[in-house]
Structure formats: C-alpha cells, structure tokens
C-alpha cells in the first residue's frame, strides 16, 4: 500500500463528509454567533433585586433630591427624586455621574500621612487613631504657644451641622479663623445687610416672575440650584415671560433667552445704574414701595444723576435707546426681577457695587419680597446648641483679628475673604490649616500665588474623599465618606425662595476606611481635650444630628427632606423695617470705582474672561469621566483647551482656527488652541473653568488648562471681595 496524493484527498473528502454529518459545524456556528453577541467587555447590568434609595445630592450647592437605583448592594444609577421641592424629578449631568465618584479610582482609601516632600505623592497609610492624634497634637502645640488664632479651617460653606461643628471647634479652641470659599451669596448677604440691616439670605421666586433681567447669570449654565433654574426656565417659556440676558458672550443662557444684550465685559453695574436712572427719571418706579418703605430716595437720585443712558452707552457699547428701552420694559412688567451673579456664581462674590446696583433695580420696581421677586429668607435656625464654655486661651484668641480681615474696618460687609489670605497673602498665614469640601489649590484665582502661600503653611490637613490638588499637597489626609455613604443635613440656600433642608443618607456601605466628617470633628475635639472635649458631648455625629433636628427628624427620615412650602417673606408694613437706597456705606459702595482688569493695555491688548459650563464642574468636585465625555471639541480638543476668539480679533492677531498659541496674562501663560467663534465679542478671549486639573484620575488630569492659573484677583474696594472678572491678555506664537 502506498499513501499518495489520491489517498490523502480521499481522506479529506471522507473527513469533510463525516464532519458535515456530525453536529460540529452547526454547533460551532451557533456558539460563535452567541460569543459575538456577548463580548466580555460589553458592560452588562448586574442581576439581582432592583430598588431605590433616596438621598440628597451634595455635589453642588443646589440641594437636589435624588434616588439611587440599586441592584442588590450595588448602586447602578442616579435619578432625580420626583417629590422633591427643589428639582421635582430632574437631575443634572454632574448629579447623574455621581456613581463614578463613589466607585472611581480617585478615592482616598485610608488616612494618609505624607512621607515624601509635599506634593510628591508619597504617603504612608495610618490608622484613624494615629491620624487624629497627630492632628490633635499639632493643634495642642499651637495652642500651648498661646496663639490659637494660628489654627484655621477652610470649608465650602458654614451651613449645616458639619459647618457648625467646625465653627464650634474653632470657637472653643480660640481661633476666629474659620474661612469659607467665596460665592456670590456672600455679595447678596452683604447687600442685604447694607440695605435692610438684616442677616439673611436672598431667594428668588423665579417661577412667578414674568420679566427676568439677568446680569450675566448663567441660568442655563449652572447658576443657583441648576435643575430648579432649568425648570423655572421652562415655566417662563410656558408663561411667555421675557428673559433678557446681559452678557458679553453668547452662552447657552444667552442663546436661549428672548433677548441678548451683548455688553462690554465688566460694565454690568453701569448698565444697571443707568436703567435705574431711566426708571427714576421717567417716574416708572413703584411709588407704593419706594415712597412707602424705602429710605433716602433723594440720596439715590443724586447718585443716579451721573449714570445717564449716554454714560452707560459709552461703558457698555449699547446704544442709549437700547438702555432706555429695556429699562422701560423692565419697569412696566408686572412681576419683574433682576438677577446678579456672573456664570454659576460660585467662584467669587464679585463686586459689591454690581450686586447692589442690581438689587436697587429690584427695589425700584418693588420686586423685594413680592411674588416673582427677590425675597429675603431668614437663615436656618434649627441649630440651637448651647454656647460652649471658653477657657482663658480661647477668649484671648477670639479677641484677635481675623487673618483675612473680614468683618472689620473696610471689610465689614464680608464674612470670609479667603482670597485675600491665600491669594494676595494679605494677612498672617495660619500654622495649621484644615481644609474640607473645597479645593482651594485648584479653584481659587491667582493659582500660582495661592500655591506659594499654601506652601508656607507649615501643616495642612485635608479631609477630602478624593486625591484632589489640595489633598495632594497636604501633610495629612483624613478622608471623609462621599455623599452616598454619609448621613448629614443639607440646608439649601442657592437662591431658593423657600427653606428646604435635605437629608443626605447613606445609600451604600462605606467602600473604604473613611469616616463621616461630623464624627471626625467630634473625635478631634475629644483628643484635644479640656474645654474642647466638653463642648462636644454627643455620643457620635448621628446622635448630634438627631438631637439638633429634633422636631424635623421624623419628616426628614420619612420624606428625605423638610420643606416650608408656606413660606412667604415678611410683607412690608408701615413702621416696620425700611429698605435703604443710599447713604453712608451704601454711597461708598455705589460710588466705588469700576473694576478694571489687571494688566497694561499696551502690552496686553486683549482681555481674558473665564466662563462656566454645566458640563464642567469646577469646585471641589471635578468632572467624572461621563461628564468629561460630554465636553465638546470646541471646548477641549485632545488635551488642548480651546480659547474662543472672535474671527475679527483672530485676523488682527494673525491666528487661525485650530492653531496652537501661547496665551499670556500678567500672572501666567499657557498653551491653548484657537477656536474662532462669532459668539464672543472682538477683543475678548474666553476659556472655560473646570479643566487643567493636575490631580484626580487620568480621565481628568492633564486635560486643558486651569484658567485660575491665568487670572488674578482684584480686591473690591468697597468690600474686599474678589471682584476680578477677567484679566488683560495677549497671544504669542508657541
């Protein structure tokens, strides 16, 4: 027998015939098709019981109610809570992406002690007890020197029990240096104090307004409580209310408004005062309010006399008739309201003069404490703890001036001026700084100077849940739970017209060795001992919260929020409080110089202005991966941030679409990509806030530039607030 080619072919043919008569080919085909439909990398929802748990979102000050969809123990989706008075079922892009913050790779998993140089990223995990002892020892050391004011803490806000616990700790310790991050609410608060002499917050009855005059507020870009304002915008459309957006750039808000007034940046106050001039001059003001409940109308008239429509025309670039037309329309509307707060209003308080000018417009049309107007809403008063007993050292420390100067002398209207301290380096820097729920190294303007000053502080403690820029440059990190893991009260301000307290409740077990910030403060006070320990007698934070909220607790637990739907601001009555229109400090504020961007116009012919986008979170929370994916390539292309330039300006400076240029300002420079856009005014450059992180994860770090490194701060002469809205700039070839 000889095996030849024929035999071989025969074998193959026999094999093929046999295979065809076996299940092999048919089964393999079927299996392969199933395999291709079930790629292992395709995300598949986990199986298990599906249910919802409700809580409150704390990623921005908006205070939305959310429900988290869970499959067994895994959180899989965040939705808006339908019943919630703030967002009524809506949710924003950041709120939706919250699970990536819970499960993402940037979480700090355990307390960390710095072992390398500061900012080098070398850490040693330590136990909670060791970390707290170290911090307490540091604090005791500073106090033993008789200088408790050299310990300071910086929070996002002083609201709620956690804010109050920190403040109480500072008080009993003896330091007046409790700082909060700047916000437009600071300006409103100062304006209320000056006009009505009260400590309260401002709310807006947006839903009932029929004419909205917005001075640069990014109503659809994340201003106030973003979802609530989005919903109010829908109501305005349904009710045919008029929305006038005054802003140099065609933002989303301007694009969706009924009218867009493109004024020169920084001229808002001039325009508001000229409109007030027209309203007064034409007797269009509501005399029942102005004559009945306002003081010093004559004084205001004198100040307004200088602010003619012609003067405003020169400042704003609008025609005088346009100024007159909109002043008249605003005054003739039945429920007009004027709003202040550039962009999202969360970075700086801005110029008090601008805020005051807008508030005066509201007063002239009687929109103060009236339906559809600007309301004064009392501060939340549910935290009624007994005053702590102070020892000698604490009493002496509290007598000393604040390091930022806020609340005294020329800075009387302000309650916290962290920019002065960390940016300008105006006061004495603390020896121990505790930072919670904010990221000053990223989000304060004049970033370079802030970093330099920060480096001079000998001991910095971060309570951040994420390895953000500030935590990365701290000496000790005591990570707190993220919002989905913690129990806490969330008293909402953010321009809400009614008081709402949300309850943030854990929807999942803590993923790592983190703690509730309230518990950390209580434990820290115990470690400090003596009068500090005595002032914190609660078993734990949960006990403190329940005791504090007493009568509201059941409602909070049951519904997830407490809401005073019946709230109405106090009606104006004869003999009651008056609204001051002018005189004293008010005159000083109104006559303060307009804020001019820093830099020599000859060297820096352009002006750089940062802008806010709903798709870019720029506070303590950075953009999660879902959100950064939603940023358009006219904002961020590859790793380059796009600077928006008017085509006319681009021609003048010989740059073209997509070219890479150097953007230079008096405080810094950065590589940017040119994006030509008719939506911005000639001579003005726009760069978004929220990019250029150096910390967090690979999805966020190294993308674009941090505009805060390019802009400086400018002190508002009347209040000390940071009032810089832009800076002089130029473009250069790379």
């Amino acid at each position: 027998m000889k095996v030849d080619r024929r035999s071989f072919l025969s074998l193959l043919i026999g094999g093929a015939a046999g295979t065809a008569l076996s299940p092999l080919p048919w089964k393999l085909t079927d299996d392969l098709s199933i395999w291709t439909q079930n790629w292992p990398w395709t995300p598949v929802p986990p199986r298990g019981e599906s249910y919802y748990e409700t809580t409150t979102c704390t990623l921005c000050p908006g205070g939305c109610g959310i429900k988290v969809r869970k499959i067994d123990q895994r959180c899989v989706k965040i939705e808006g809570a339908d019943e919630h008075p703030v967002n009524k079922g809506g949710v924003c892009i950041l709120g939706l992406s919250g699970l990536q913050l819970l499960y993402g790779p940037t979480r700090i998993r355990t307390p960390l002690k710095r072992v390398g140089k500061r900012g080098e990223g070398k850490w040693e995990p330590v136990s909670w007890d060791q970390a707290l002892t170290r911090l307490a020892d540091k604090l005791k050391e500073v106090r033993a020197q008789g200088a408790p004011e050299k310990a300071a803490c910086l929070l996002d806000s002083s609201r709620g029990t956690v804010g109050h616990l920190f403040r109480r700790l500072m008080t009993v310790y003896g330091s007046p240096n409790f700082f909060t991050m700047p916000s437009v609410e600071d300006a409103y608060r100062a304006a209320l104090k000056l006009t009505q002499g009260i400590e309260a917050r401002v709310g807006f009855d947006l839903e009932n307004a029929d004419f909205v005059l917005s001075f640069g507020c990014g109503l659809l870009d994340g201003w106030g409580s973003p979802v609530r304002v989005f919903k109010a915008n829908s109501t305005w459309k349904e009710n045919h209310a008029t929305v006038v957006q005054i802003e140099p750039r065609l933002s989303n808000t301007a694009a969706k408004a009924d009218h867009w007034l493109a004024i020169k940046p920084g001229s808002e106050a001039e325009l508001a005062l000229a409109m007030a001039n027209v309203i007064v001059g034409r007797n269009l003001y509501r005399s029942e309010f102005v004559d009945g409940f306002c003081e010093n109308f004559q004084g205001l008239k004198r100040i307004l006399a200088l602010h003619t429509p012609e003067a405003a025309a020169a400042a704003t670039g609008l025609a005088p008739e346009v100024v007159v037309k909109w002043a008249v329309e605003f005054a003739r509307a039945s429920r007009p309201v004027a709003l202040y707060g550039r962009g999202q209003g969360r970075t700086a308080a801005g110029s008090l003069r601008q805020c005051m000018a807008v508030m005066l417009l509201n007063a002239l049309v009687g929109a103060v404490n009236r339906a559809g107007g600007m309301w004064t809403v009392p501060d939340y008063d549910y935290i009624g703890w007994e005053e702590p007993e102070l020892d000698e050292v604490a009493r002496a420390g509290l007598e000393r001036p604040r390091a930022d100067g806020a609340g005294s002398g020329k800075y009387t209207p302000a309650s916290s001026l962290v920019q002065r301290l960390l940016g300008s380096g105006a006061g004495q820097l603390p020896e121990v700084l505790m930072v919670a729920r904010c990221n000053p190294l990223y989000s304060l303007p004049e970033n370079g100077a802030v970093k330099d000053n920060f480096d001079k502080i000998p001991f910095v403690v971060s309570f951040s849940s994420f390895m953000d820029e500030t935590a990365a440059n701290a000496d000790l990190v005591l990570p707190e739970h993220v919002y989905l893991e913690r129990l806490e009260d969330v008293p909402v301000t953010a321009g809400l017209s009614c008081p709402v307290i949300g309850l943030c409740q854990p929807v999942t077990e803590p993923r790592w060795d983190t703690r509730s910030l309230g518990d950390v403060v209580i434990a820290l006070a115990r470690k400090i001992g003596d009068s500090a320990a005595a002032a914190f007698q609660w078993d734990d934070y949960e006990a403190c919260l329940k005791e504090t909220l007493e009568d509201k607790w059941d409602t909070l637990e049951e519904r997830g929020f407490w809401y005073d739907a019946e709230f109405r601001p106090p009606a104006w009555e004869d003999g009651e409080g008056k609204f001051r229109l002018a005189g004293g400090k008010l005159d000083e504020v109104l006559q303060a110089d307009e804020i001019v961007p820093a830099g020599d116009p000859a060297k820096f012919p352009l002006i750089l202005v940062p802008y806010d986008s709903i798709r870019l979170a720029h506070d303590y929370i950075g953009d999660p991966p879902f959100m950064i994916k939603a940023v358009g390539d006219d904002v961020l292309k590859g790793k380059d941030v796009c600077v928006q330039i008017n085509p006319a300006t681009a021609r003048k400076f010989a740059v073209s679409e997509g070219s890479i240029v150097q953007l230079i300002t008096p405080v810094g420079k950065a590589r940017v990509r040119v994006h030509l856009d008719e939506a911005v005014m000639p001579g003005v450059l726009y760069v978004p806030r929220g990019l250029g992180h150096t910390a967090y994860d690979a999805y966020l770090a190294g993308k674009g530039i941090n505009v805060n490194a390019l802009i400086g701060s400018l002190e508002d002469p009347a209040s000390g607030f940071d009032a810089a809205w832009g800076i002089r700039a130029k473009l250069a070839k790379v």
Partner: protein
Amino acid sequence: MSSQEDKVKTLSETPADCQAGQGSGGGPFIVLFFIIGFVASLVVGWVIFPKVLYSQKSQPFDFNHRLHLEQVDDGCQSCHFFREDGSFAGVPKLEQCIDCHEDVQGESEDEAVFVEQYVAKEREVPWLIYSRQPNCVFFPHAAHIFGAKLECRTCHGDTGTSESLKPYEENRITGYSRDIWGRNIAGFKSNTWDRMKMDDCAQCHETAGIHDSSVQTGRDACFVCHK
C-alpha cells in the same frame, strides 16, 4: 541537456507513472482512506467535540431539592420567589437559607461546607446556574408563570425532585451552560425541558400565538425577547 530532450523525457515518463499508481495504491485503498476520514470525523464530531467544548465544573457543594421541597408549603416558589415588583428572585440568597441553616443540620458534609464557608462568613454561595440565558435575552418569569400559567417543570424538568446537583458543564466558547443547547449534541429533544434555545421558545410562542412585545415598542418577532 537541451530543452527539447527534456520535454520528450517528461512525456515518456508520464504514462508509466500512471500505470504504477493504478497498480499499487488505487481502487480499494482510496475507499479505505475515505472511510477512515469519514469515521474519524464522525467520532470527532459526535464524541470528542462535545467533550472538548464543555468544561466540567462542580457546584460549591451539593444540594438536595427533594428534601427541601418536602419541607416547604409553597412549592418551588417558597425559595424561587417573585419579588414585590414582579421580578423573579432566581436562586435564593443566603438571607432565605439562614433561618434554618444558622447552625449545621444533620451530618452531611455539604451542609457543613455551606454553614462554615458561607453562612458563618456571610458570603453568598456562587451557584452555577444551569438555565441562565444569554444577556441579550429578555426573559420575564412572571409572564410565563402568571400569564401563560406554565409549570416550572415545562422548562426546568424534574429539578424539584432531584436529590443531588449534576455537574455544571460550561461551554468554553460562549460561557453558557450546556443545558441551554441540551445534553444531546445534535440538538434533539424528547422533553420540553431538554433544550432552551431560541427555537424552543419560538415553538411555544408560535403555538400559543404570542406576538406581544413591550408596551413601548409594540413590535413583534425578534423584539418579543430581544429588547
């Protein structure tokens, strides 16, 4: 050698080659090789292939369905229940077992494994599920049990009266259980529960005239199960 001579030689050799081939390796040998190939591939296809295709895995420990069924009042649904929202809970979680199995009951080794390895450590048992459909299939138990009033055994066979768990055979390509295609590699079945492929679903849907899809899409055919 010239090229012409070369050609002549080639021509003259060819017929001789053919002769030799016919004489020594043709005829019956060709048939023999055909049969060898045919039989070998049949053996591969019917016997070896199924053995290679499926990997055998054993369950974390054995389980006696019959014993449990005797103890409960509500049949299969005592443990394989529907949740309040109508979704099917599937394989029970520790939570359902823990009432009786907090401590070791009886002397079986499997019971000891369960209590010590899982109950005591609060770990869910990683059961391998014989009847899990691919992820692209939308299968609501409620529609079949409450709507079509099917018996559990129509699809799952006599699992309820089994005394031990059979080995789980995982398809190495798809990662799914062998029970979906069926024990028979040719795909033949004698009982309704022998296979759970699309055709088996379709057969029943066709007979019963089911054309309902979701309320949202209202589409028939593929969309009834592939949403």
